[in-house]
Structure formats: C-alpha cells, structure tokens
C-alpha cells in the first residue's frame, strides 16, 4: 500500500499532491463556506437593504472562492484519476444536485440586480435555494464518503450539519463585515448555527470509528492517543469558548455596550474557521492514506510520476502568485461592506 522506497519520487510526489489537495479543499470549505453561509442566511435578513449589504459583503470574493473547488477537484482529477472516477461516480446524484445549486446561486448573484426590479425577490429566493442545496449536497457527499458510500440516513444528517456549519461561517463573516442591526442579527444567527456545527462534528467523530475498525484503532490505540488528544480537546474548548463569547456579545448589545462588536468583530469568524480546520485535521487523520475509504490509497490512485512532476513545477511557480494576489484582493476590499455597485 505504501511504496517501499520512502525516498523516491513515487512516494513523496503523491503525498505532496494529497497535501495540496487537502489545502485546496480546506480553503474551499472555509472560503466558499462563508459565502454559501451568507446565502443560507439571506431569508432571515430584515429588509432589502440588509440583503443588498449581505450580498455586497461577498460580491468581490465568491468567484475566486469557488475556484478553490475547481482546484481541489482538479487535483483529485489530475493527480489521482482512479480515485476521482470512483468517488465521483459513487456520489453521482449529490454531485449533480450540488452543481445545480452552485449554478443557481452563482447566476442569482448577478441576475438579482439586473432583472426588472419586481423580479429581484425571485432571484433572492433562488440565491438562498441554490446556496442551501449546494451546502446540503456537499454535506451528503462528505457523509457518504467517510462511511465508504454506505450510510444514507447518516449522510443526510451530515448534510444538515454542514449547512449549519456554513451558516456559522457566514454569520461570523457578517459580524465582521457589517454594522448596526445586521451585525447584531448575525450574532444571533451565529449562536444558533454553532449548535448545528457542534452536533455535526460530534456525529462524524462518533460514527467514523464505529463503521471502520481501522479508524477506531487509529484513534484509540494507547501509543498515539495522547498525541492526538489535542484535536478533539481543542475542538470542544473552542465550541464552548465561541458559545460563551457569542452569548456575551448578544448580552452586551442588549445593554447598548458596543465595545465587543467593535473590538472583537473578527473573532466569531476566526473561531468558526479554526473549528473547520480542526475538524478537517481530524478527518484527514482518520482517512489517511485512503482516498476511497479502505479501498484505494493515494499511492494506488496516483498518476504517473512524470506527470505529477510536470504539474508540481507549475504549482510551485504559480501558487505563490495566486496566494499573493488573493491576499491583496482581500486587502483592497477590507473594511465594512455595503451594497455592490460597479464603481
């Protein structure tokens, strides 16, 4: 399963690509998660102006955010073609539904401000529906994947949890990027979404060791237990911290104390993103080195070494530039959001 020569390119190139893919997927989940989350929260906005501001807060970012998905699935496609085919054919319908959802929300973004004003509401609904459908489908895909394409009911539960997790990211983003009433509303959304997220992480953590003895052994063997303990421990601590912190924010706002919202507006989003990163780390540890649980390892699925090498040079040359101008773009659009206009 693992190549015998641990110094050869046959060993490390697939590993490097698995790492790059994991990075792209995590970047996608956090970045597009926040804008899918904003879409899921859209119906709870108080007015059209609030909806405009919410969408304005993600307008300059959603397109690049979605590109991480293309990169993630692209690396799966190009570096691990065997796994790509097996995973995506097994997830056929959720993938089709996710794509339909992504199409709908991506265009709703633009259509809502360009159609006749009386149709704007319709595209707001489409934006919400598409975002929710995409988030649910991604959760279902995750649920199917971790159980080796078996548990349907469980997968639907994870679908709801992932949608909740994205809503948490979205709410955190809105706390950071918005002001006044909308910002306070977003604190409330974050508090509710946190419970969905926590329940989802707990469910995946409980079920994966049960369906796979290998994963059980990996987490609960005595020699690694203590090395791994920080991951679940930090997750629990973070959930509790976020819950307490959000409750305080809401309470302060009730007492007209604005200090927390001004000074700590970034914290809920940072907390949510860290939560996702921890959950991702735990999942990666459970699954490694399998790309298809208990069936196909990353070395078995990898493309030819020569092709991987040709791509790696490209990635090494281009990726720093991509990260650089992505960071620059976030800097350009730093600060509080307002409705979009082309100026």
């Amino acid at each position: 399963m693992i190549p015998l020569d641990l110094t050869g390119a046959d060993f490390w190139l697939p590993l490097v690509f698995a790492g790059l893919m994991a990075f792209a997927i995590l970047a996608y989940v956090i970045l597009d998660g926040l804008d899918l989350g904003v879409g899921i929260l859209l119906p709870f906005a108080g007015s059209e102006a609030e909806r405009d501001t919410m969408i304005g807060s993600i307008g300059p970012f959603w397109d690049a955010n979605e590109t991480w998905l293309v990169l993630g699935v692209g690396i799966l496609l190009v570096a691990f073609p065997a796994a790509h085919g097996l995973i995506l054919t097994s997830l056929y319908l959720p993938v089709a539904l996710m794509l339909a959802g992504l199409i709908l929300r991506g265009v709703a973004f633009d259509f809502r401000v360009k159609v006749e004003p009386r149709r704007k509401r319709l595209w707001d609904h489409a934006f919400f529906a598409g975002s929710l459908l995409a988030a649910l489908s991604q959760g279902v895909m995750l649920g199917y994947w971790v159980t080796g394409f078996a548990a349907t009911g469980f997968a639907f539960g994870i679908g709801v949890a992932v949608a909740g997790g994205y809503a948490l990211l979205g709410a955190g983003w809105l706390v950071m990027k918005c002001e006044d009433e909308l910002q306070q509303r977003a604190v409330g959304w974050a508090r509710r979404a946190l419970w969905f997220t926590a329940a989802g992480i707990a469910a995946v953590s409980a079920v994966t060791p049960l369906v796979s003895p290998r994963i059980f052994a990996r987490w609960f063997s005595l020699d690694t237990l203590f090395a791994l303990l920080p991951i679940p421990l930090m997750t629990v601590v973070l959930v509790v911290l976020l819950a307490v912190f959000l409750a305080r924010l809401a309470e302060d706002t009730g007492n007209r104390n604005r200090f927390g919202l001004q000074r700590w507006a970034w914290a809920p989003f940072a907390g949510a993103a860290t939560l996702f990163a921890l959950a991702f780390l735990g999942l990666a540890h459970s699954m490694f080195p399998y790309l298809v649980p208990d069936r196909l390892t990353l070395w078995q699925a990898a493309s030819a070494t020569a092709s991987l090498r040709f791509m790696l040079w490209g990635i090494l040359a281009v990726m720093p530039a991509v990260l650089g101008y992505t960071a620059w773009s976030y800097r350009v659009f730093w600060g509080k959001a307002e409705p979009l206009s082309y100026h």
Partner: protein
Amino acid sequence: MPEAALTLARIQFAANISFHILFPAITVALAWLLLLFKLRHRAALRRGIPGADAWAELYRFWVRVFALVFALGVVSGVTMSFQFGTNWPGFMLKVGNIAGPLLAYEVLTAFFLEATFLAIMLFGQRRVSNRVHTLATALVAVGTTLSAFWILALNSWMHTPAGYELRGDVAHVTDWLAVIFNPSFPYRLAHMLVASGLTAAFLLAGLSAYRMARGSAARDAQLGLRVGCYLAALLAPTQILLGDLHGLNTLAYEPAKIAAMEGIWASQAGAPAVLFALPDAELRANRYEIAIPRLASLYLTHDWHGEVRGLNDFAEHPPVAPVFWSFRIMVGVGLLMLAASWTAAWQLRGGRIPGRGVLRALATMTFSGWIAVIAGWYTTEVGRQPWLVSGLLRTAEAVAPNVGAGAIGVSLSLYLLLYATLITVFVAVLFYLARQADAPAVPDSPPRARWRKAR
C-alpha cells in the same frame, strides 16, 4: 454498458459543454474590448478630445454585461470539471497523464487570475488607482485567453494526439511541447479566438443597433455599433481564411471527418462541392443532392482533379448527417456575418448612421455568433466519433460503467431545465439592460453605494 446510459451520458455532456461554451465565447473577446474601451477613454481624456465620455459609458454598460456572462461561464465551467469524473472516468484513466496537467495549468494560470482581478475590475474602481484598475482589466483579458489556450491544447490533442507513448493501457507523455503544440492546435486556437471575436462583435453591434432602432441617439450606442461592425467586418473574412486552413489540416489528420463534412461517400477525383443533400446512412449515398462539380477537389486539394477520399474508404466514420449539417449551418452563418458586417461598415462610412433595415438585421443577429460557434463545435466533435481521443480511446470505452440510465436521466433533466431557464432569462436581461440604458433616470434610484475603507 447499456446503450441507453451511453446515449444519455453523451447528450448530457453535449448539453453541459454547449451551455458552457456560449459564455467563454463572449468573454474571451469582450474582455479585450473592455480594455480597449478603457484605454481609448484614458487616451481621449489625456488629449482633451470631446466625447471621451462615450468610451466611459460604453465601458460601464458592457462591464455589466461582462459580469453576468462571466458568472454564467464560471458556474457552467464548474460543472465541466466534475463531468469527467461523474460520467467519463475512462477518459482520465487512459489519458489522465496528458489531460490532467493541461487542465491543472488552466486552473492555476487562468481561473484564479480571472476571478480575483475581475473583482477588482468590477468593484474596485474606487479602491485602487486608475493604473491598477487598467492593469486588472488587462489581466482579466489575459486570463480568459490563457484559459482558451490550455483547454484548446487539450481539445486539439484529443483530435490529433502527439508527444505520447502507450505503456500498458495508459498514455504517458514523451514530449510536452509536442503535446501542447499538437498538429491541429494552432489552427483550432486561432479559429476559436476569432470566433469569440465575431461573437462579441455581433453582440456589441447587435445590442447597440437594437437601442438605435428604438430611437436612442446615445453616443455610446453609436460608438458600440461602430466598433462592433468594423471589428466584425475585419474578422469575418479572416475567419473564412482560417477556417479553410483548419479544414486542410483536418484533411491531413482526420480525413473521415472531412468526408462527412462534405458528404462524399465514394472516393473520387474531381469531387463536387455538395450544397444541399440529405445524407442517407443506410443507402450510403446522398438524396436530393445539389452540388457544384469539382469544386470540393479545388478547395481541398487546390487542384480541379484532386483525389478526395470518400466515407466508403473508412472502416469507421462519424455519423454523416449531423456533421454535414452543422458544418453547413456554421458556414451559412459565417457568410451571413460577412454580408451583414460589410453592408453595415459601408453604411457607417464618414460617420453616417445605418438605415433602419440594417439596424434591425444587426439586432436580429445579436446572438448569431452563438449559432456559428455551437455548429462549429458539433462539426468537429461529432466528426471525431466514434473516438474520444482519435485512434486511442473510444467514447464508449470511457463512459462510467456504474452510473445507470436512471441517474443520468435525473441529472440531465435537471440540467436541461436549468439551462433552458437561464438562457431565456439571460437573453431577456440583456435586451432589458439595453432598454434601461436609454430610459430616463429614475428619481428614487438607490444611492450610489460604495466600499468604505475601515481604516
């Protein structure tokens, strides 16, 4: 693999890629046009030429269109990236070593560039200097063109594979330059880039003509019409020349496709150019044929008596009727474009305004580029059948064995419903935006929103 699932999977791929190509076919060239508008505006401002504002107006209108088209291109493109895995896993298993890196380079060098700088281009005008904004506009244009470069390298390789060897049952690369610059690539790239130019030119001219036909005297509508018509008048003959060169290249590498395009069944010296016919696959002949004797030999071999191989010479050949007809539709639309753009360019001479008839004709032809592009792609893609990669991988071998007709039926219905709705809305919105451009300003329009710096 049951026949029904294969057929449905092929229809689904055709639906997805046909929907997708509509939008890049506009954005690749429109991005460069936007850069042109912006540079002309800046130059006119610098030299104090009156009417500089018309270029700015033109940019403002078309950047809104661009944002919409680009969004549609992005979301339909995401579908494409999943499509290989969900329906055609055999493709990546066999030629993944070639297709993979080419797709990866498209994502890395083009997609992130386009997406990030598009945001600056659309929403960052007040947040960055004018120079940086112009640079962002240029980078978006570079990104769209790079994207076309990589994807056409892969597509061309599927028609004329080169620079590889088979080890076992998997293709491995021996020479990357030969893979990228495979024999049909330069022709296909040039043909497609000019096709995008024509599509954008007719869109620009068409919507501008639509506004003028409705009585608009706006400077930017006249300017748009002028740029669109002159560009089309320049590109239409160029495209005919490029198409001919591309055809000669196809004759050399894919002679069966040419035979299907021409509707020539029996090999013959002095082959006729078939203008109209109903190719009959059972009869292995054309019915109701109207043809010009010897002409096909002339333009294919540059000799009145040149030998042209017919379909009967090939053990396997593509289905004839779809290739034959889509080729004729493409050429027909191309000739129509030539006639329309030259007539309009003539009428525009010396700052004149074209007559209503020409304006209406141009407005009708707003989306003519789409028809030609789709017909052209069907010609080349159906013409490659039964191969997915010429001589290397059959379409039927690549299809997913474990995805049933039922599942594909569900996803296909979903996509078709979505695509039909979106195309209808898209076309309606474009004409609505054109009407809005000349509508009197609404007094209670929302205040000019902007981004504020926090610091």
